[in-house]
């Protein structure tokens, strides 16, 4: 058995930031991650990170307002205020740690424009900002006392009398399960992308932490809010960063028209993501698309700028769409990208379960509400990662270790053994694919009651199939077959919270757009939907939105 003050599940930006903060505050900290830290999905973030720096003439209130308007007024305004106020110091802190941010003429941090914001306040490292930040944070972790369990897979939370006292995790190298006791556990395991097919997300984004929180009884909030990014490649769903439009690229339909003129005359291509994705989908649905896509045209930006600031996505276009954006428009379409919802936390990362914290894409504070602004997610991971690390390390000072022993891995060990013993049934692959297809069909940019009901009944059938899933690989060492099968179990639970949340919300708000209920309804639905699992059954609750000073208004871009 291992024993720590604080265990962090996940080594993305949120997890490593949390671990550093807790360790600097004197806690004995472990990070458990199913991939090497630098392989975490945070590395995929291309465009940048937002912060309103006052010495640049910007101010946090403008950033907060843009965020709240972007969220379609579903974000909790106290949380957004915290994020906007603390953004500057987090970005500067990353710079001091060694992130190679692009500069302006005076050698200060340079900015680019991003969607849904009236001010250019997105700081960036070319078009691989996430990778740049992730590696720098990893350097700091290597120089700290944090113990990192690399390629270890968390299978469950250790719960005693409604409190979280650690995790059970598998060392993937040996296949052995270990009990890992902690006074506090911070879940920072990233998003749920693979629940949808296709998705911009990595194959490891399977919602493990959200599902573990759900199974343990924590509230899961805003899950109906699924972001479809406006510019993803058709073939493999890879992302073409919003940075392209931030740098001035246009969106064209089959008639060569900059169609955003009709939907968002002021902000055009840089309206909020939900708005742009809906506009594209409408163009495609009304027959002005090309083979299910519209075009991202960056030709007028010139090769020099593209090479300096968009080199990575230029290569993605060449590799995966056969189009070089220097000479050709690239066909793109809306694609599943981000989950605004997650484990409900307060502004210090605390969930409804004592000893359990959440941070990053896994958590829902809620700063993104109905729609996240581009470049606010990296910020969310750092600000709330640090805050949960700090809070947890303070909190554990007054806690004694629970009586936990090695027997706590027994249930998981038996479940896994049963799974390995089963030899009649189907492999995970088709079940996962069918789940993704159903979700992408019925919980996409446009939704309606019938479609969502269909998804709900599909899910029941998928869960039935899953109860007979088999694992080909019967060995223990690096059994990725087993890992994928366990992940699929997590994904099915996440899908349940998404579908239930979506069926519950009887209006259109942010990313949740219903063709059968096209209007926003502040009177009845200016509230969060929280799904939790009580005695194995899902239960739905409401939580009011926290409004500090920005009253809901009509949303126009």
């Amino acid at each position, binding site marked *: 058995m291992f024993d720590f003050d604080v265990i962090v599940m996940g080594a993305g930006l949120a997890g490593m930031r949390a671990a550093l903060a807790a360790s600097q505050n004197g806690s004995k900290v472990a990070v458990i991650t199913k*991939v*090497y830290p*630098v*392989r975490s*999905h945070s*590395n*995929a973030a291309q465009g940048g990170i937002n912060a309103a720096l006052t*010495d640049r003439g910007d101010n946090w209130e403008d950033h907060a307002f843009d965020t709240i308007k972007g969220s379609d007024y579903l974000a909790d305004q106290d949380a957004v205020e915290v994020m906007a106020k603390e953004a500057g110091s987090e970005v*500067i802190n990353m*710079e*001091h*740690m*060694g992130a*190679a*941010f*692009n*500069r*302006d*003429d*005076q*050698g*200060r*941090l340079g900015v680019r424009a991003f969607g849904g914001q009236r001010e250019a306040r997105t700081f960036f*490292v*070319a078009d*691989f900002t996430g*990778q*740049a930040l992730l*590696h720098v944070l990893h*350097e700091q972790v*290597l*120089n700290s006392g944090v113990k990192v369990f690399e390629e270890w897979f968390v299978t469950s939370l250790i719960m005693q009398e409604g409190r979280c006292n650690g995790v059970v995790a598998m060392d993937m*190298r040996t296949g052995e399960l270990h009990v890992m006791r902690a006074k506090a556990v911070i879940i920072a395991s990233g998003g749920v992308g693979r629940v949808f097919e296709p998705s911009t997300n*990595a*194959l*490891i984004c399977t919602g493990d932490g959200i599902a573990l929180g759900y199974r343990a009884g924590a509230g899961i909030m805003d899950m109906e809010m699924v972001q479809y990014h406006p510019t993803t490649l058709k*073939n*493999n769903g*890879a*992302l073409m960063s919003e940075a392209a439009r931030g740098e001035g690229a246009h969106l064209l339909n089959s008639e060569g028209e900059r169609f955003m003129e009709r939907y968002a005359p002021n902000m055009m291509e840089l309206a909020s993501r939900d708005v742009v994705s809906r506009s594209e989908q409408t163009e495609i649905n009304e027959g002005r698309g090309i083979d299910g896509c519209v075009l991202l045209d960056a030709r007028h930006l010139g090769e020099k700028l593209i090479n*300096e600031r968009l080199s990575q996505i230029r*290569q*993605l276009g060449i*590799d*995966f769409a056969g189009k070089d954006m220097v000479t050709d428009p690239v066909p793109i379409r809306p694609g599943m990208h981000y989950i605004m919802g997650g484990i409900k936390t307060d502004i210090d990362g605390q969930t409804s379960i004592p000893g359990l914290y959440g941070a990053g894409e896994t958590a829902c504070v809620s700063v993104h509400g109905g729609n996240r602004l581009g470049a606010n997610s990296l910020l969310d991971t750092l600000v709330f990662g640090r805050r949960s690390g700090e809070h947890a390390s303070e909190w554990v000072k007054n806690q004694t270790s629970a009586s936990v022993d090695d027997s706590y891995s027994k249930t998981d060990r038996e479940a896994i053994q049963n799974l390995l013993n089963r030899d009649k049934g189907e*492999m*995970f*692959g*088709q079940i*996962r694919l069918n789940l993704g297809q159903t979700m992408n069909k019925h919980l996409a940019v446009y939704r309606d009651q019938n479609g969502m009901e269909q998804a709900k009944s599909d899910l029941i059938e998928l869960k039935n199939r899953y109860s007979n899933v088999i*694992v*080909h*690989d019967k*060995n*223990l*060492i*690096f*059994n*990725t*077959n087993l890992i994928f099968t366990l992940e699929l179990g997590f994904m099915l639970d996440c899908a349940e919270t998404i579908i239930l949340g979506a069926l519950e919300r009887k209006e259109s708000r942010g990313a949740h757009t219903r063709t059968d209920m096209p209007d926003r309804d502040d009177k009845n639905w200016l509230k969060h939907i929280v799904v939790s699992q009580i005695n194995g059954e899902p239960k739905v609750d409401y939580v009011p939105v926290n409004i500090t000073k920005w009253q809901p208004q009509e949303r126009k871009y």
Partner: protein
Amino acid sequence: MDVDLNIARFNPDAEGKSPYRQEFNIEVNETDTVLDGLIKIREEVDGTLALRCSCRSAICGSCAMRVNGQAVLACNTKITDLVSNKNKSINVEPIGNMKIIKDLIVEFDTHWEKIKAIDPWIKTDSSPPEAEYIASNESMVELAGVMGCIQCGACVSDCTVLAVDETFLGPAALAKAYRFIADPRDEANSQRLKDLNEPSGIWDCTRCMQCVEVCPKGVDPMGRIMKLRDFAMEAGFKNTNGARHAEVFSEIIRNNGVLNEFWLPVKTFGMFNIPEMLKLAPIGLKMVMRGKMPPIFYEKIPGYKNITKLFEKTKVL
């Protein structure tokens, strides 16, 4: 279309535990990558196939492997680029210079140990400014070029020095070291260069270019190692065979306009360095016997003075 993926496999749990080959014939699309093919196999044909992969867009660094003998990222290697009407077979193996755990999965431990060995974090003596450090965009773009390394291990896999000397820090760790030394914010250059000057460091690269060739992110590890050599010599770390070799090399050319291979090693090690001279003796003897010994006395080339002038003009060494 269909292709044959011929995969090097190894199951550590199996009895006998010997590596074997397995060929899978699969249907693929025009745009499919080698990774797509492998995923298809493990999801539809044989769930036991083990490999690491995650982002599918060449940024996470998980899926480095050897395809047709060369280290690549499977996720940005298109199948159509590898097959023809005549040959539809593709060879897939784990990356080299690392121990195999299972199928295409290798131990990265030694890789990370070497990364850690270069103290991979920014070191400053003074406390940071209140706001950001002021730096030119050029310096940051240049730095971002090397920080674009995704630690995939492709360069480590195909490094010809590591293949014969596992103590060599290797291209990835040295490129990482460069990242700190080139960073205007780091204040530990002199100690870093001193450490890199030790055996297994910057002077052990043979400049075979293999790392530059296979790097999927254009990091140019060898180019960085060469720059580190320059930095080390500029900082006054000249007391290594490598540094002396470089100095003697240019000295001979500067003074004669042509290289003399007899004097190069002799001067590098020092004529009175008896142990090294004794070590050279057997090679010298062999060369004499095969008639390949370079002349001890040699002539300067005509116009050598112009070469000397060139050296003065460009102020190298």
